């Protein structure tokens, strides 16, 4: 990697202050499993002058529950989330999503904050500098989106504009279905953002110099069935082609509450609100599940090579509902 200077931040405020001081020339490092790829590939227009380590901030890696809320510090490792009895008993969909990420070694280093803030995986965007130079595209602020006319098999099928990259984070999908809030801190203070609002077509909702501090998840009814389904080309390591998270409560076969989120289809996780509404009060069977799945994908507008993702998404929605 090209050289940079390095600072161990001791507090969140210090990290924010450093970000402010370096005016876009510093980057945050948590587990490093995504950041280091960017630094090695040198595909971004700007190479950071400084890397600010967040792991040196103590007390940000908790997984705890109080006041009916699950609280996860931004620096909690995915492996700790997977192993946490708290998460696997009450918030299984999150445990499953975290377990589906990459490999054991990556989960031992990767943090949930990093997982939410990781950069997109578009292969045009990430094309490495060393083999003919990086690629310019709409997201990088120059020219059109290359994926539209190129190979877009893994790209978005809904809610995109200008850039058709999808949100690569698996935990985001689980957190979206759990109605979680991302708490961020910045120079102007703290604020909370719903996970579904955290992602945008060209960037996430973090304002400059803001840092994710924690995630809060409201308690889920014990009778709810929580499911996370991830379709990948191969089982481990791969990013989702499509994923679905669901939390469904039934009383005597009748659906009393339904929450469904789709992953890897859009710039962020997408709640299938209409499908959710459709299910409530209904008896769940194959037919109903298939209808809800149709509804969930009703807004999909595929690119040249990714219409298959619609079919897979429908299948996953149906299977999640019927679980």
């Amino acid at each position, binding site marked *: *990697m*090209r*050289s940079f200077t390095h600072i161990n931040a001791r507090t969140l405020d210090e990290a924010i202050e450093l970000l402010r001081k370096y005016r876009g020339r510093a980057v945050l490092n948590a587990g490093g499993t995504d950041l280091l790829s960017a630094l090695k*590939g040198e595909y971004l227009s700007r190479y950071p002058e400084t890397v600010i380590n967040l792991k040196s901030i103590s007390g940000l890696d908790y997984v705890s529950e109080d006041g009916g809320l699950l609280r996860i510090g931004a620096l909690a490792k995915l492996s700790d989330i997977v192993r946490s009895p708290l998460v696997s008993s009450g918030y299984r969909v999150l445990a499953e999503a975290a377990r589906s990420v990459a490999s054991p070694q990556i989960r031992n280093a990767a943090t949930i904050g990093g997982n939410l803030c990781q950069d997109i*995986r578009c*292969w*045009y965007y990430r*094309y*490495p500098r*060393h*083999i*003919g*130079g990086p*690629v310019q595209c709409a997201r990088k602020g120059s020219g059109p989106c*290359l994926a*539209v*006319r*190129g*190979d877009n*098999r893994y*790209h*978005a*099928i*809904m*809610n*995109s*504009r200008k850039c*058709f990259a999808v949100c690569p984070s698996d935990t985001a999908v689980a957190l979206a279905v759990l109605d979680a809030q991302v708490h961020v801190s910045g120079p102007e203070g703290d604020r909370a953002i719903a996970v579904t609002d955290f992602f945008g077509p060209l960037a996430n909702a973090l304002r400059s110099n803001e840092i994710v501090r924690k995630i809060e998840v409201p308690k889920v009814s014990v009778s709810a069935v929580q499911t996370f389904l991830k*379709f990948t*080309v*191969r*089982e*481990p*390591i*791969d*990013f989702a*082609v499509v994923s679905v998270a669901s939390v469904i409560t039934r009383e005597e076969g009748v659906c009393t509450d339904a929450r469904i989120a789709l992953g890897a289809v859009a710039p962020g996780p997408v709640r299938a609100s209409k499908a959710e509404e459709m299910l409530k009060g209904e008896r769940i069977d194959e037919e109903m599940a298939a209808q809800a799945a149709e509804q969930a994908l009703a807004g*999909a*507008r*595929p*690119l*040249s*090579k*990714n*219409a*298959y993702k*619609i*079919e*897979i998404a429908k*299948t*996953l929605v149906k299977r999640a509902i019927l679980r």
Partner: protein
Amino acid sequence: MASPYRFIGKTTPRKDAREIVTGRANFLADRKFPGMLHGKVLRSPHPHALIKSVSRDEVMKLPGVEAVLTWEDVPNWKGGTPRCTRILDRKVRYVGDAVALVAADTEEHAKEALRFIKVEYEVLPAVFDIEEALKPGAPQLYEDFPGNVVTPGVPFFGPKNLKEVVRGDVERGFAEADVITEGTFGYENMPNPIPPEPPGVVALWEAPDSVTLWVSNQASYMDTVILSHIMERKIQPRTIGGPCGGSFGSKYMSWQVQCYAALLSRATRKPVKLVLTKEEHLASFTLRPASRMSAKVGMKKDGTVTAVQGTWLIDTGYYSMTTQSQIAVGCGEVQIMVQCPNWDLKPVIVCTNRNASGIVRGFGGQELKCCLIPLLSLAMEKAGVDPFEFLKKNFVRPGGGYFWRDGIWYNHRGIDHTKAMERGAEVFGWKEKWKGWLKPTAVNGPKRRGIGVGIHGSADIGEDSSEAYVRLHPDGTAMLFSCVTEHGTGQVTNYIRMVAEVLQLPMERISITPPDSLINPYEFGPAGSRGTYAIGAAIIAAAEDARQRLLELIAPRLKAKPQDLDTVDGVVYRKDDPGVKIPWKAMAVDRTITGYGRFDPDYSLVNCMMTFIEVEVDTETGKVALLRVVNATDVGQIIDPPGLENQLNGCLGSAGIDSAIFEEMILDRSAGRMLNANMIDYKWRTFPELPVIENVVMETPFPSHRFHAVGVGEIATSPGPSAVLMAVSNALGVWIHKYPVTPERVLKTLGKTGSGKGGAA
């Protein structure tokens, strides 16, 4: 039956096992040399362009930079067949083509220097498709190759070298056929075998005309031979091999990487290390050739093939070093698979603006079969022939023949492979599972299972020449001189095993020389499954020669004739009276005995691998799961049980079976960039998705060498891919003919997705 052997066929730890499990095996990247510099390559952003100017004034001032070379600075060294590709050229022909070379004290400094080299290009139109490249007016890659058609033929294979399969009378053949099918079939996904260790080298230029290279290749002697040709025979290259971190054919040839380092060392007179990154390995090193075949076959109701006619287009990327060889061998192998009297199969090698194709396990035959078997399957379906019966019936039997790569007709004098095929079918349960063409073996809701079978056989087990020495020492030890690198097959240990068996000497007492071209005789290297027979035969002959000389020398001391003596554990004794014995020391402490052995090519023996595949397809997601693989083969005699099993399990990776499931290089066909040149987006098989593999290995003695064995490692990958297509088609009940069977293709084949219209807003 008790084994007649003391070492052959026995499981012993590999000689290098301890080094490997402790991390002490010294792979190329682990080596350091005093004053060593690091080399890096500046690569082209354009798929096709002329270099107008290169400015490097700033670069030489940068810290640590010791040399910058461009096409203007380098000698006129050329590679390729014929030799048309300059080591650095004024023209770049793919995204990633070498534009300039830098040597600096650290890798980072070398990399940093690349940023400061300013290049002006005149961009030329580029072509990425085989058929587009053949059209009039298509961009031309080389003046030497009008119409982008690469000159056919391999002079090294002899004056009649095989360029096509033309024999008999195809018109008559079609007239005799009960069914005729035709169509265009491709195997165009260009998988990369990606050995874990990337290509690399350390070069040290020592005198005006001599250079030493530490290589990590599969065949370290051949590096010398190849480089000396490229360096116009004016330079003496010495190559020293070491442990090779995988190759699968691809690292047989790294002449470009080697020349880059050699030139940088020539410019600096310091050792230069140049190791490709994994991205470079994927985007700029050789891939499997891409094939597209338009053909027509005639078949009788009993599965007899009466005629094969067609054009086989091979996309070799921006140049070809070995594609003609692959074509020649593929053309030979296809006749072994289909014993048909009438052929008119014409290959055309085409160059396009992407990184080059080169050697990969399966060497031409896999590429051709992956196109031909789907076409034959259509005919089998029409004729109502079971594919297992078809492949069994048409494979060469003893006495059957084929034109091999040298254009000469050979008759197979080996064994009948039918027994192994039948045993494989039994273990797999073919008869019970086969329900007919396009019929699943089982349906469970949306999940459907299907089976398929494929075959491959080659006469390359006796290809090319090998030489070896075996030196006996008075202290009762021996040393094998053979220029072989260990690249994963375990063969280095097995050669010691063979010497041990001939000399009846414990394996611990036998060592092998480092694979250094300076001290060892000619060795073509382990390729094409030739290791066991060809290399083995040379080594056995050397050991036998040494043994004979020993017995001759000792005979007078024991008052016997050499033929009345034998040796065991470093002691020579009289066969009629084993009490009369004398240790090897009797040869005199100031003497060694050296035996020499040579193997000359023999194309009259054929190995065979039949692979049965069972898949399960989720028709709602398009996911293809590989459930079970049964490989059936006959090796004559097992030399090394775990080594053989490992090699057969290798059927999955290295651009083998998985090239039908998810392995592919994805080329953006407007910019010419490889989009998935990293190991996240390039898919490879992981532990949780391992299928069940059963290897059925028969041991019918082969008329090869004294251990009656032949190799099969190379061919393990080849029967699988077409068998996967067959299995998936049967599971779905619809033909699917494109590799790999991605979810997108499966769902499309099932009519479950329209193509998108664009604009995901």
